[in-house]
């Protein structure tokens, strides 16, 4: 933006303001860096639709960046601004190529073992596009704060119970096979032919 002002000599009572308006042209221009500025963030969890995780567990929530509305790549900076007591995100610049919707930002969630069931947290990550700055131009970018709930829930039943069941069936099958072989052996033994010499006796 450039504003110019000419200093006029003298002060003989002339209307300097009017003269300035006649001769001074200041054009204020604020440029938006591109014709269209757009990006989006999709998430499987949000406020009211929590990510559920048991105490002591670690999990990951993926936030997926989209750039489907423009023809230009966009760089987005991510920062964790809420829920830092349980969440961690790689705070860096993410390049989201034009026409893509699969650039993933991973938010790691780690719940303390001592947390009570039903404990709720709110995790917030802020995203802002990086704008090119240059002399005489003020660029305008877009930003999104995305938040999701984290709910501490009871751990699901241990999968080892299912494994024990499977193992039991395998053991039973082996026993049955062994018994079957033994019975067959007994039967064949019982049918063993008697020798002629034994018959003669």
């Amino acid at each position: 933006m450039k504003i110019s002002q000419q200093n006029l000599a003298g002060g003989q009572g002339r209307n300097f303001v009017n003269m300035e308006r006649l001769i001074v042209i200041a054009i204020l221009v604020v440029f938006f860096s591109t014709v269209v500025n757009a990006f989006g963030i999709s998430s499987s969890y949000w406020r009211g639709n929590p990510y559920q995780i048991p105490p002591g567990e670690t999990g990951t929530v993926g936030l997926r960046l989209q750039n489907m509305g423009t023809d230009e790549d966009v760089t987005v900076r991510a920062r964790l601004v809420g829920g830092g007591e349980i969440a961690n995100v790689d705070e860096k610049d993410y390049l989201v190529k034009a026409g893509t919707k699969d650039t993933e930002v991973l938010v790691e969630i780690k719940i303390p073992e001592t947390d009570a069931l039903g404990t709720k947290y709110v995790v917030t990550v802020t995203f802002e596009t990086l704008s090119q700055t240059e002399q005489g131009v003020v660029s305008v970018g877009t930003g999104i704060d995305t938040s999701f709930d984290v709910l501490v829930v009871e751990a699901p039943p241990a999968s080892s119970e299912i494994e024990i069941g499977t193992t039991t069936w395998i053991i039973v099958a082996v026993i049955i096979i062994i018994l079957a072989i033994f019975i067959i052996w007994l039967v064949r033994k019982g049918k063993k032919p008697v020798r002629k010499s034994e018959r003669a006796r």
Partner: protein
Amino acid sequence: MITVLVMFFLIFYFGNFNLRNAITGRLSSRETNASISVVGVSPVTITVFNGTLTGATVDPTEDSNVSIVFYAVISDNDGAADINTTFVRANFSRTGEAAYHNNSCSQIGANLNTTSKNFSCTINMPYFASPLPWNVRVMATDLGNKTFFYNWNDNSTFTYAQLQAIQISHTALTWPSVAPGDINQSSNNDPTIINNTGNYNITNLTFQGFNLYGATSFINVANITISNSTGLSVECNPSNRTAGGTNVTVSLVNGTNVQIPAGFILRNDHTSNNNETGQEALYYCITTVPSNIPSETYSTTKGWVIKLI
């Protein structure tokens, strides 16, 4: 005697039917073509499955539709041939929302077996459709037209993810000729159009501006106001309020997220372009052009940001 009886039998059975009919009173008959459609009595059964859809989460595409493909197996105990292949339909439905339909799912490949066929259905979901689970419903009939109304007995659902997305469009924001000391100068090529291009109900939009610096001086961004209204210089008066007391115009604050007046854009199709449906318009004003700043270039090292919170 036997010969006579045989001859009598032959004449009676293979002879003139009129004669026989005359005896029995039966009507005459003649050859005619006839076709009989044999249809099954058993209704079709429907199984919806798709490893990538049922129970899965689908991401919307900003400002566009996403094509969602899934598969359904239609079975008929009377045989696969009894399935009406031209009448397999599907929809995504959710209480309180408009449903999205496909009225012509298509068979894939040959029959799966003697009683089943596999069908593919594609339904387009718009970017503004509600997040959360959607029911997957398929309807099919057999040639006996015994309609099995949808697959009510299973819980085929998928989750449409939440998409927060905005699109701002403008090439350049300009003012008419201004001079130092001028006041209430509205932009002459606004508004900035902000489109909600996701399915998130935006209830808080903010604008963050930064001071403009020259080599020796600066322009305080507080001299710039924004508004969602225009006319009679509404955008230049920060004291303007609605009848309910809501700000209509606000001044920018250096490095601070200032809430845009009425900064809510509910999810909807913004293509009506009426500055209301899925859309918001922003107007700008310079309330005071500093009178004591030198002639030089002013800019900022930080871009201004329109933010969805």
